[in-house]
């Protein structure tokens, strides 16, 4: 059932509405004892989660008798952003994922953030699906902050992703949706995958299997879905960053998601006037090429690729 989560008046003949689809079956043995939330669209240009949410809603609704509990699906936390191809919250300067837990007395964006937290509060698990931006393509991965590693890593391993990246905590990240929920006891996994403004169907299917797997592990879904892969974990591994020093046009020379060896060409930056190679980017280590630049125009400083280094033997 589609339900409103946050409603506020816009200036001219329209309400701002965040909605969710609640799919529940209280008839099962564990009668509505558990609730899982799937959230996406905080950044309006990240669309991979759209297809995951759509397919999840269809599978769960069609197989409701195999569900025992509640799954709340929030496909558009930032509905104005999605409808206007805008990453941020239109008319608001701050990144929406930097204002949680929001405030009931704040601006519209802050009130919306507050309403979302209030609505998710008390759930057993939340999965927050992000795409990369339009510049970079990412393999399906879960990002976990060091301080939540203990609570989240076991679940991250079940999500059928390629990679779990455990990163350092930073004060600025304390105002994300995921951090706020984790602090309130809702185990929240942040997924990053694909590229902005596009849907990568294979990644969506892969994550969908992972979400169904978690629902099965939590005992609220007895239908299809399951894990087919075990992710690399960033712990004790280095991440190699490859940035451009020149400006120009980037042409990749290695396949995204492939394994590269030290010294392999990952890509070239060329001068569009002459065709001259102004920079060749070589892999600084051997490992998984998990991030690769998608948008060809680069400035000095543009991120071109990231490599998750292999674990050294011995």
């Amino acid at each position, binding site marked *: 059932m589609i339900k409103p989560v946050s409603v*506020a008046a*816009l200036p*001219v003949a329209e309400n701002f509405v965040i909605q969710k689809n609640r799919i529940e079956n209280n008839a099962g043995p564990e009668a509505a004892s558990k609730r899982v939330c799937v959230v996406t669209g905080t950044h309006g240009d990240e669309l991979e989660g759209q297809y995951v949410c759509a397919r999840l809603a269809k599978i769960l609704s069609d197989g409701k008798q195999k569900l025992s509990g509640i799954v709340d699906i929030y496909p558009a936390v930032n509905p104005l952003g999605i409808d206007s191809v805008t990453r941020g919250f239109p008319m608001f300067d701050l990144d929406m994922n930097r204002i949680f837990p929001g405030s009931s007395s704040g601006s519209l964006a802050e009130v919306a953030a507050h309403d979302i937290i209030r609505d998710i509060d008390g759930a057993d698990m939340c999965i927050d699906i992000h795409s990369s931006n339009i510049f970079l393509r990412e393999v399906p991965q879960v990002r976990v902050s060091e301080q939540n590693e203990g609570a989240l890593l076991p679940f991250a391993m079940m999500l059928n992703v390629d990679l779990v990246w455990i990163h350092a905590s930073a004060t*600025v990240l304390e105002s994300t949706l995921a951090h706020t929920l984790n602090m309130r006891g809702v185990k929240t996994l942040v997924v990053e995958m694909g590229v902005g403004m596009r849907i990568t169907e294979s990644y969506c299917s892969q994550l969908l299997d992972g979400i169904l797997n978690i629902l099965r592990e939590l005992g609220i879904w007895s239908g299809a879905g399951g894990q087919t892969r075990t992710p690399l974990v960033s712990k004790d591994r280095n991440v190699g960053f490859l940035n451009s020093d020149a400006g120009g046009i980037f042409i990749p020379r290695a396949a995204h998601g492939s394994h590269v060896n030290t010294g392999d060409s990952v890509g070239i930056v060329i001068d*569009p006037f002459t065709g001259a190679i102004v920079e060749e980017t070589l892999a600084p280590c051997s490992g998984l090429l998990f991030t690769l630049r998608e948008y060809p*125009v680069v400035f000095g*400083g543009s991120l071109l690729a990231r490599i998750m280094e292999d674990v050294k033997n011995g």
Partner: protein
Amino acid sequence: MVKDIIYSIKSPYRQSMDIVGYTFGAGERSCCVVGALRGNEIQQMAICAQLVDTLKRLEENGCVIPGKSIMIIPCANTYSMNIGKRFWTMDNTDINRMFPGYDQGETTQRIADGLFKSIRDYVYGIQMASFYREGEFLPHIKVMDTDYGKLETYESLSDFGLPYGLLRTPHPYDTTTLNYNWQVWGCRAYSLFSTYTDHIGKQSMQTAVNAALRFLIAKGILKWTLHRGMHTRILNEESIRTVKAARAGMLKKHVSVGDEVAEGDLLCEIIHPLEGNTIGRIMSPVDGTVFFAYNKQLVMEHTDVFNIVPFSNV
């Protein structure tokens, strides 16, 4: 005056973006003034430009105290300014949310890093700042209330001779601003808010220029005679009363920034955007001075329309 390029980045088709710093005097790095970090901070750039022009003459007349130096950086984002965009040209990121920066990161992280490395060692830092909310302010000086802030920093707020000095308790999203990171590094940092952002106000510009010069004189960096300015009322940002729009529509304001109002005075009406009738009236909750006024014609629900500084601190 010495003109230096303190940081430069390359793009494929535009001339390189050079961030220029103007230094007056020599010796101790006494005070650094930073203007526009965003492409619409035109008033902030104009204030710095006038400071450069004034300091040029003062330096020629021997007014810079021997052994002291002042650096002015009028604009650190000429690329965005030249295309009329507030945030970074390519990825829409905000340089003022990237500090202390990262020299192996994305372009705006590199700009923040390059800029910060050349300005972090100054004893005093003044940022000509604009706020994330759109509107007009009374001129004021603000300091972030952090563990790193020193009592002297607070007491010096009145050295600017502006009518208000504010202490701000930082939010997580403040921790990546220039002002916050200046403080972490040990610099005594202030943010000076002039009335406008993308509009040059002649009077408010002069007020800001004088405030900066007055501070340089008070700190023994500049020897010159300038009237003492206004008495500074120092208050906590939280003691300012916010007045929100409970209805959405067209805004008809009855008061302006600087006006004194009594409790119950009509501040504005909200007009139905299609039918023209008044659908809401907002009264002042307190006796005080209008400190901030939203300056757009249309308001959404929850918009902060006015800020009022109460006459009494009770």
